[in-house]
């Protein structure tokens, strides 16, 4: 891998197998301990209990950031060099930073990385988190995550499969003002949930029963192209044609709005997904993007509160407050979200209270996110529309957005807790571990220029590396350039996925029903043809 050598000492340890290796087992225990301690620290403040903490075995001070030896019970400070001294003196090789799960090798004299250790770290953290969270609605515990283990059938299939090299970063040809489509497609390609779904062959375009204009088939073909061994740019011609036929409002060679194309394509993927339903759908679009927004309206007179819940696939944010509103500081994604979820007065003509019966009452409304989706998409409303569809102008204000986003302060649950306890921004208001609310940025769509002669480009991340996509041109990029770009849309993915208690997906149930029905029809046909034969024979007797 570019001449970078891994640490041979950790490789040897991993080679022994997880459970045989004492240090790796200790590593997992220590990581789990820290996850439990962090959760305890959240809740202990209200009680007189104390969290048990480690002390440095050398200098006896309490350790806010313990480093533990993986070979013995030593724990110590990093900064003052005590843990390094211990490793030298006792000839122990590895110590771990409990807070981050980073492992230091005293032979290599550096922090080291091994993919297996990374897996063990995440498995230990997620297992602890699963124990700490219950579902709000059913009070049931989270579904335990299980690593994929290939079945005998899978092993054979894998052995017979040919591996091909793939660049995975392919540009998309501009087919005539189609940069609006290219940027959205790149954001789909780099969306881990969509990628896994289509690479996992969940919708095979050769077996699909839909005769024409199936957007799922187009997605399947797109992923096959991106993950092929062809490195040059690809022209998504059939995708464009299907889009024109399914969404006629987007047809034609003029520039379209990327957000419109995004929503339109999500709807087309949903409707061409097997087993998709109109209510509580769990097709790939809804499983990935669907969240819930709650709107609470409070009558100022009698305090009666009514709540409505609406589904959402993305969040569109205003860049400007209402006239007369004081904007604090610079424009950031967080301030936009604060504005989105702040309490606002409704005009007296808009509301009549069902409880105190008076119409024309003063009332206030507040939006919050009731359910967070695995992928959060944000659109900044940059294009001001006047009455009809014609756009009057573009708002170019720069918005600063983070690589890591904590959505807890905007969720219904936390907002209600915070109101009750009067504690703003306090983590004790978060039910469950903090990572449940954390999102990582993975794609950004930029728009430059004016409304009618602008150009779309995008950034997207694969694991730790960012790339810039300008139609067919793909270049490496830094996080700094991503965060400084003129963003129109931002895509975030949840750090850890939380699974609810398992229920068979509707498309599987539907398929099982179809198969059962087909078998039944076959059986009846057989029976009736046997009967015909018998009747014919009897007639000849």
């Amino acid at each position, binding site marked *: 891998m570019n001449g970078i050598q891994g640490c041979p000492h950790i490789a040897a340890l991993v080679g022994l197998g997880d459970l045989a290796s004492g240090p790796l087992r200790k590593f997992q225990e220590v990581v789990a301990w820290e996850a439990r301690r*962090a959760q*305890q*620290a*959240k*809740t*202990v*403040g209200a009680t007189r209990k*104390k*969290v*048990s*903490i480690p002390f440095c075995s050398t200098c*006896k*001070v*309490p350790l*806010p950031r313990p480093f533990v030896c993986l070979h013995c019970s030593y724990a110590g400070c990093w900064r003052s060099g005590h843990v390094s001294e211990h490793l030298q003196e006792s000839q122990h090789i590895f110590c771990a930073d409990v807070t981050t799960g980073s492992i*230091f090798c005293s032979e290599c*004299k*550096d*922090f080291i990385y091994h993919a297996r250790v990374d897996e063990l770290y995440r498995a230990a953290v997620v297992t602890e988190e699963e124990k700490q969270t219950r579902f709000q609605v059913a009070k049931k515990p989270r579904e335990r995550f299980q690593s994929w283990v290939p079945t005998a059938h899978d092993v054979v299939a894998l052995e017979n499969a040919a591996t091909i090299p793939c660049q995975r970063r392919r540009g998309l040809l501009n087919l005539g003002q189609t940069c609006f489509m290219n940027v959205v497609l790149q954001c789909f390609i780099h969306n881990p949930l969509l990628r896994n779904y289509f690479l996992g062959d969940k919708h095979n375009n050769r077996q699909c029963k839909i005769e024409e204009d199936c957007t799922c088939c187009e997605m399947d073909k797109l992923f096959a192209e991106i993950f092929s061994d062809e490195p040059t740019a690809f022209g998504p011609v059939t995708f464009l044609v299907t889009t024109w036929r399914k969404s006629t409002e987007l047809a034609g060679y003029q520039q379209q709005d990327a957000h419109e194309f995004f929503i339109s394509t999500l709807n087309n993927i949903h409707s061409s997904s097997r087993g998709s339903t109109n209510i509580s759908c769990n097709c790939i679009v809804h499983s990935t993007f669907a969240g819930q927004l709650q709107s609470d309206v409070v009558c100022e007179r009698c305090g009666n509160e009514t709540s409505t819940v609406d589904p959402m696939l993305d969040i569109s944010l205003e860049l400007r407050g209402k006239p007369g509103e004081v904007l604090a500081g610079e424009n*950031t994604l*967080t301030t936009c979200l604060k504005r989105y979820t702040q309490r606002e007065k409704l005009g007296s003509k808009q509301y009549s209270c069902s409880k105190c019966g008076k119409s024309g009452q003063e009332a206030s409304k507040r939006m919050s996110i009731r359910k967070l989706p695995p992928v959060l998409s944000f659109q900044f409303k940059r294009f001001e529309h006047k009455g009809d569809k014609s756009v009057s102008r573009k708002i170019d204000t720069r918005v*600063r957005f*983070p*690589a*890591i986003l*904590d959505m807890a302060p905007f969720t219904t649950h936390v907002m209600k807790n915070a109101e009750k306890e009067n504690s703003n*921004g*306090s*983590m*004790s208001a978060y039910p469950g571990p*903090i990572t449940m609310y954390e999102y990582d940025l993975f794609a950004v769509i930029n728009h430059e220029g004016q409304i009618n002669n602008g150009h779309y480009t995008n950034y997207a991340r694969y694991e730790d590396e960012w790339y810039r996509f300008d139609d067919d041109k793909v270049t490496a990029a*830094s*996080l*700094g350039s991503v*965060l400084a770009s003129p963003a129109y849309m931002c895509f975030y993915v949840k750090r850890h996925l939380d699974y609810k208690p398992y229920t068979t997906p509707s498309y599987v149930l539907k398929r099982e029903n179809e198969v059962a029905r087909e078998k039944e029809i076959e059986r009846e046909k057989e029976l009736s043809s046997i009967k015909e034969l018998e009747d014919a024979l009897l007639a000849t007797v």
Partner: protein
Amino acid sequence: MPPAAATPAELDALQAQLTQRLLESGEWDRIKFVLAAKLNDSGWTDDMRNRSKERARTIEPLSFNALLEEMLPPAQTSIPLAIRRDVIALIRGYIDQQIE
């Protein structure tokens, strides 16, 4: 009556005791959470992550200690004053509660 000056050893012991209380009560974690959130909101965290990563591409020979030595001073000096002030106030508030 002005307090008697404490020796360095006494100050060390006091600091250890305060650290212990902060950790055992969970207050350390709460303050750290506020600090991390403010730093992230201000863009400092992303800036440090970006600078460290880009520097790591070119630093030779690459090691954690080499990178830390280079990145720690600008990290400390670039913390926005308002955040530094707010968090110190939180810590001071806790200490005032603990000490008669």
